[in-house]
Each structure stands twice: as C-alpha cells, then as structure tokens.
C-alpha cells in the first residue's frame, strides 16, 4: 500500500502539530489554510505556557494536560519559549483565602508549587503590587505564538508535508454515501480552484470547525468564546503573573519581548470571522492589570486584540467550560466517514491534541504506528520559509 494521504484544514497550533505528527508517522500530508500560518486564534493567543495552575482547582483534567505538555514543549521547542516561571499572587483577603485550595489543587495535579514571602516576590519582580499578601511560584512560561506554530509547520515541511496557504476550503468532496473523500479549494494567491483527494480529512480549524463540518453535513458542539488582550509598551515583569483566585477577567500579565500583555475576558459571539474591539474591555484590562502591576498605568497601550477560544459544549458560560480538548470521528457522530474534527484545548496542549487526533486517524485507517512527537525536537521556525 502506498502512503496514506491526509488533508489537514487549518494551520494554527493544532493543524501544524497534526501535520508534524502525521508526517512523522509516514503520511503524505497536505495542509490547507485560508490565511498565513497562525492567523486566527493561535496567533492571537495570550502566549502563556500554562503550568496548569490556573485550572488546578476546577478543571483538573486540563491542568494535568497542561503540566505534562509544558514539560514536553520546553524540551522539543526551547527556541520559542521564555521559560522563566510564573507567580500566583494574592492582593486581597479573598485571594488569600483561595491559597490553600490552590496549593491542594496543584499538588493533586502534580504541578510543582513553592510559596515565597511577599518581600522575596517583590525582590524578584519589583513592579508587583507592593500590597501583595502571598506569592506562589509555578513553572509557567511564555511563548511566541507565531513561532511556535511555525516550528511545527517547519518540522512537518521537512518531513514532506505540503502547505497551501491563503487557500480556502470552499466545499467537501463527498462520495455517493456522503463520506468525505477530499476538499475543493480556492487558492487566493492566483485565483485558481481545484480538488484535492485524500484518504482522510482532519478539520483543525478551532473556532471555525462548524464552517467545515457544515459542508460535510456533520456537526460538532462548539462555543466560540472570545477574549481581549491588551499589550503595553514596557516589559514590566519577567515571569507570568497570575491572580491567585478563580479564573476571571484581566487576571494574567505576561512579559513578551519588550511588552507586558494583560488578558483576558470571556463572552459569546456569533460571527467568528471578525470580532470588533470593545473599548470598555480595554479599560477593564488596564484596571485589572494595574491591580497586579500598578506600573501598567505609566505604560502606553501598544496593541489590542481579540482571540476566539474554541470551547467545547453548547451550554454554560465560557468560564465554566472545561479547557480540555476533544477529537471527533464523524463516522460515530454523524455517520460521515473520512472526516475527523479536533477542537477545544489550549495552545499549551496542542501537541497532545495532535497525538490524540492522529491516533484516531491511524485507528480509522487500520494502522498501528506509535507517536514520537514528545521526543523529536522541532526544526528551526525559520526553516519554514527556506
């Protein structure tokens, strides 16, 4: 049998990680992406390499995924990570009351957590709110969004994957029984339209998965949940600074190059293609960010952006939905063969998402090839353009 051919729709974190995994497992891989690499939610992520601490109390499944993947990503793609750790700080009595629950959660999930004195925290991060009451160190990090996706893409390309960027999937190719056999695409760099046939199609379009499944008369339960991020023009901290409390608005401040980025919010939308910026939320980020890092008020706004999380499940407010991911075989879901959809998850867990998805793909095609992405270091992101 010749190599099986897989089409991956979407070149965000998940799509590029899947392309890399498929290529390593010996597939012929074609990636179709309607924009450049990581132009959707992936590019616009906050950039937090989660230790899992944020989810250690209410969403332990995600927390465990995060800490496991955090360790793997540091090993396979150190070129795009600032591995400086993170702090959870308490600035109110309510925060302080959360401390023990938080520590217990971290311990239950295997997340190393160390308490340091407020004085020590201020020595490490002089721009912290001087009124802080407690500080805990966890192995958070930050990463460069585009370069993380580019590293996976470059590695996939090195192993033979072909990328069609600025190419929209306009329809599915279906056989007589409604099973997916490929995609119809529109290359917007030259206006050409053509068909690509494959043994399997992987829908890795994140918040946009519904647009693709609709073409195959299939469905997935997905709740696009955007949040705002505001970048300020000064690198005020070297670590990820989190509010020691239940996840809420504007409770994380991250360093990135010469910037500090505050995020985020959580609300619902209908149109995922364009999410306008809400200036009230910008103001909220400044207020909430300044509770952690007062010097943000002396910095200037440098950029504002919205990113749309692809949360799984159709009910409940965004904050209560698990951050875990799910891969769906549409044969089981809608009796449509040839199509697998992956969504949900976090940037931090993109490699695990790819592993799970490609496991399903292999199983469907009757192949038994082990995943090696946890051990294989990624190629330089610059190689994608070479």
């Amino acid at each position, binding site marked *: 049998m010749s190599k099986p051919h897989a089409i991956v729709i979407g070149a965000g974190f998940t799509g590029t990680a899947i392309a890399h995994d498929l290529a390593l497992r010996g597939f012929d891989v074609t990636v179709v992406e309607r*924009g450049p690499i990581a132009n959707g939610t992936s590019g616009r992520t906050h950039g937090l390499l989660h230790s899992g601490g944020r989810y250690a109390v209410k969403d332990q499944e995600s927390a465990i995924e995060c800490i496991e993947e955090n360790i793997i990503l540091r090993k396979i793609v150190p070129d795009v990570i600032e591995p400086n750790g993170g702090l959870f700080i308490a600035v109110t009595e309510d925060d302080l009351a959360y401390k023990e629950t938080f520590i217990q959660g971290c311990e239950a999930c295997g997340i190393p957590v160390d308490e340091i004195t407020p004085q020590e925290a201020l020595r490490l991060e002089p721009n912290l709110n001087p009124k802080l009451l407690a500080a805990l160190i966890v192995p958070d990090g930050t990463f460069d969004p585009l370069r993380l996706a580019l590293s996976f893409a470059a590695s996939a390309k090195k192993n033979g994957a072909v990328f069609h960027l600025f190419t929209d999937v306009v329809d599915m190719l279906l056989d007589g029984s409604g099973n997916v056999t490929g995609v119809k695409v529109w290359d917007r*760099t030259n206006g050409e339209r053509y068909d690509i046939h494959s043994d399997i199609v992987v829908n890795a379009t994140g918040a946009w998965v519904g647009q693709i499944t609709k073409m195959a008369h299939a469905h997935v339960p997905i709740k696009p949940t955007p949040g705002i991020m505001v970048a300020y023009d000064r690198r005020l901290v070297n670590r990820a600074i989190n509010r020691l409390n239940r996840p809420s608005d504007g409770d994380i401040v991250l360093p990135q190059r010469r910037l500090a980025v505050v995020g985020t919010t959580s609300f619902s939308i209908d149109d995922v293609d364009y999410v306008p910026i809400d200036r009230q939320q910008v103001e909220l980020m400044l207020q909430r960010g300044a509770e952690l890092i007062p010097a943000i008020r002396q910095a200037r706004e440098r950029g504002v952006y919205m990113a749309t999380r692809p949360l799984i499940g159709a009910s409940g407010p965004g904050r209560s939905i698990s951050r875990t991911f799910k891969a769906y075989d549409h044969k089981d879901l809608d009796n449509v063969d040839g199509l697998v959809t992956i969504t949900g998850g976090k940037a931090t867990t993109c490699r695990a998402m790819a592993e799970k998805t490609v496991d399903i793909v292999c199983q469907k095609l009757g192949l038994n090839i082990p995943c090696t992405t946890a051990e294989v270091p990624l190629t330089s992101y610059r190689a994608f353009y070479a």
Partner: protein
Amino acid sequence: MWKITYRVHRQKGHEAPHYDTFQVEVDPEEYVLDGVEKIWAFEDRSLTFRHACHHSTCGACGMRVNGVEKLTCITKIKDVTQDGGTLTVEPLRNFPIVSDLVVDLGPLYRKMEAVQAPKVHPLSMAPWEGEDIRPPKEVPAPPEGGEYIRLPDCLECGICISACPVAASDPDYLGPAPLAAIQIQGLDGHPELLALADSQEGVWRCHSAFECSAVCPSNVDPGWRIMDLRKQVATQRLKTIIG
C-alpha cells in the same frame, strides 16, 4: 466612527499590480490591520495579507502605510489619516510579492539563520532601550538558578529591509536585521560571523541612510548596530595585523 478609504495594492498570480479602494467605517482608535481584516471579512474575501499576533511580537503584518513601513497591528488609524481621509496600504519593498499585500520573507529568514541570530537569549543580552540608553537595570537572578531567558527584540518582520535603499539594488546584501543580529552576538570567538560581516555583502555595503532605524518597530536600531559592527570588524582586523 470615521469613514475612511483604504487604497489597497492588489496583485494575483502573474497579473499586473493595481489598486482597489474600499470605503470602511472604523473606530479611529482601531489599528490599520483591523481595517484590513474588516475589508477581508466584509468586502472582499479574495484579499490576502499576513498577520498573526496583532500586538507586535510576531512581525507578520509589516506593510507600507502611505509609503512608510509600519507594523500595521500597532499603527493606530488616527495617527495616519483623518475622518474622510485615505490610507494607501502596500506590501513591503525588496521582497518577492506572493499576492496582494503578502511578500515572501524567505530571503530574510535564510540570512537570519546564516548569521545564527539568537532565537532566545539571556536577559542580560537584551538590547539597549534605544539610542544612548544603557541596558535595562539589573534584575536579580532567578532563585531557581540560571538566568532569565527572553525573546529578542528583533521580530524578523522585514521592515528594515523594505526601507533600505541598498537592499533595493542588491538582494544579496545581508541587510540591517541580520547585521544587527551579528552585532548583538559580538565578533569575539565568532570567526564565521566576522567573515560574513566583513564580506562584500556585509557591513561595508551599507550606505548609512539610517532608514532601518527610522522604521524599526522594536527599538533594534540596526543603523547604529551596523556602525558599531564596522568598528568591531576594524578592531578585529587590526588585532590580526598587530598580532
């Protein structure tokens, strides 16, 4: 809300370039890139442009706005036009055009790889805070040991290459960002970098227009760095002559 006109460079396949105009309603506080994305979302789905992080950490959205190189994600609309005004958006110069506003940054990435530009580096190696300002103040070492690591200032966005008049006539010139990356590493113990910097396409090719420093969105100040690298090259060569 403002009503402004975007005049956008278009080019598909091998067709001749032309400009399309779009009337767009925008919040003046929005950024130029938001308007471009709005045109794609609501006016013309065939438009192609590069973007990813929308806050100046990835360097994907470099374009020419009214003729000047900008990272469009941090360029506020109110700073480059007024209500009822026109914005001309064009792709970067001195790179091959893929389509519309998209250029192929491959030549730059290959050069950055050739000069071993650091992808992350210790905090202490962080560039100065701009002209004449010393490195960021001392920060205590992490208690876990080692050093803080950070991503470099240079975004590899290609804006400096686009603004460089020498890069216009010599595609093989290493150019501002790669030369700056050599300068940041220093030439001591790097004979291969000395060879690149002192080559025909190295520091001596620069003609001091300082346009790179004028447009750099990330305080790399490549012009200053090229001049400093010249001094470093001369010093290294003198050392070998004197012995």
